[in-house]
């Protein structure tokens, strides 16, 4: 069950114009840096990107915005990105803003074969417009549908040739959920290990959800808000 591919460029083979992609990460934490570079090299256009954030101007998905490859972003928060704002205001870019928990749960629903879920997030707000709602007990919930993703791209800390993934600290975030939602899922990892080296009890996402995996390189792992305290 060797799912290893040699390069990010080989990993993204088959991704073509106007497809729906899911990309892991929260802010710049745990984003698939190598795959994003490969997508830019590929020149693929008209993408719909499902990702909690849209990167910053010169990093992450922001780079794909610069090269005008993204038609639509489906995110919960898209701040910190001037080019994003410009394209949005000029009408070049569509954006669908979704509550973060709804985004996460719609991804999980796809990975768990559930066509839709109920969540109270957005009840009574403009997010609820046109959506079916239903009362359970005394609380109102919106019906939200599972995502349908052509290719999912995630970044993990460690992985093996079976596609088993382990994430590190808060870089887990959306990665396992994006991964489980893809019809085809690509994982890049900081460290590829032989099958059997990962403790089967420590695996965060079983390889059954991963179709291609590669050892990434030159991770920048940029920090968005460097906050520190002084040593006494």
């Amino acid at each position, binding site marked *: 069950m060797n799912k290893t591919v040699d390069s990010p460029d080989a990993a993204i083979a088959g991704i073509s114009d106007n497809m729906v992609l899911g990309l892991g990460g929260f802010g710049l934490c745990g984003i698939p840096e190598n795959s994003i570079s490969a997508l830019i090299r590929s020149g693929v256009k008209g993408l719909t990107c499902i990702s909690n954030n849209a990167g910053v101007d010169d990093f992450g998905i922001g780079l794909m915005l610069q090269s005008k490859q993204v038609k639509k972003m489906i995110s*919960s928060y898209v701040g910190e990105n001037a080019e994003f704002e410009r394209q949005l205001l000029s009408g070049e870019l569509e954006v669908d803003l979704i509550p973060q928990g709804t*985004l996460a749960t719609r991804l999980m629903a796809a990975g768990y074969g559930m066509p839709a879920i109920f969540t109270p*997030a957005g009840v009574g*707000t403009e997010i609820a417009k046109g959506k079916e709602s239903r009362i359970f007990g005394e609380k109102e919930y919106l019906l939200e549908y599972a995502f349908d993703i052509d290719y999912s791209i995630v970044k993990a800390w460690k992985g093996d040739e079976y596609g088993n993934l382990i994430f590190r*600290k808060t870089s887990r975030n959306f990665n396992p959920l994006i991964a489980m939602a893809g019809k085809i899922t690509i994982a890049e990892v900081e460290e590829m290990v032989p099958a059997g080296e990962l403790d089967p009890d420590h695996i965060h996402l079983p390889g059954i959800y991963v179709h291609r995996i590669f050892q990434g390189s030159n991770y920048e792992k940029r920090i968005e808000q460097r906050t520190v305290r002084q040593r006494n």
Partner: protein
Amino acid sequence: MLDKNGIAKRIAKEVKDGYYVNLGIGIPTLVANYIPEGLNVVLQSENGLLGIGPFPFEGEEDADLINAGKQTITTLPGSAFFDSAMSFGMIRAGKVDLTILGAMEVSENGDIANWKIPGKMVKGMGGAMDLVASAKNIIVAMQHVNKAGESKLLPTCSLPLTGIKCVKKIVTELAVLSVLPEGGFQLLERAPGVSVDQIKSATAGKLIIEGEIPEMTI
């Protein structure tokens, strides 16, 4: 009149032993600095962490360890990481005891607006809509009036809503108020040196004043 740290300090008194707490960006983040020593409290970060610790020492920042505000942080003993579905799952299931967040407007029936200003670039709601729709106990930390001098405690919100009938308490630079189930802001405490009249004139929504209003102790 309280400064930002004063508001945070007053809110910290609402945090009880054994609480799991989610702190929003801005003033709410400051609350962590004033939780009394000895109180067992676990801070949740909705990007996937229970057990937020202080900022790291310089040189010890870890790009893989951030809070929901994307700031570098540390973890405390007993912490746990998880994915975003579980994070909002525990929020939705009411496992988080207290949520503290900022707001642009709160209405007298507990509606909150804090994500969108028409005509301005919309950055998104992040996890705010999930939090306000699910949290058992929501305290808003905000200024009583906006930069134009207009009250942010209103009969009804004018801005697009983040959630409805969810705010339980509000702490501003002027006062502590609870939102009554039947509607209305009940004045509970005055900030040091602030008069009831000052609060009255800064509150556009229905203000309920019963008996003597004590000055808060922080």
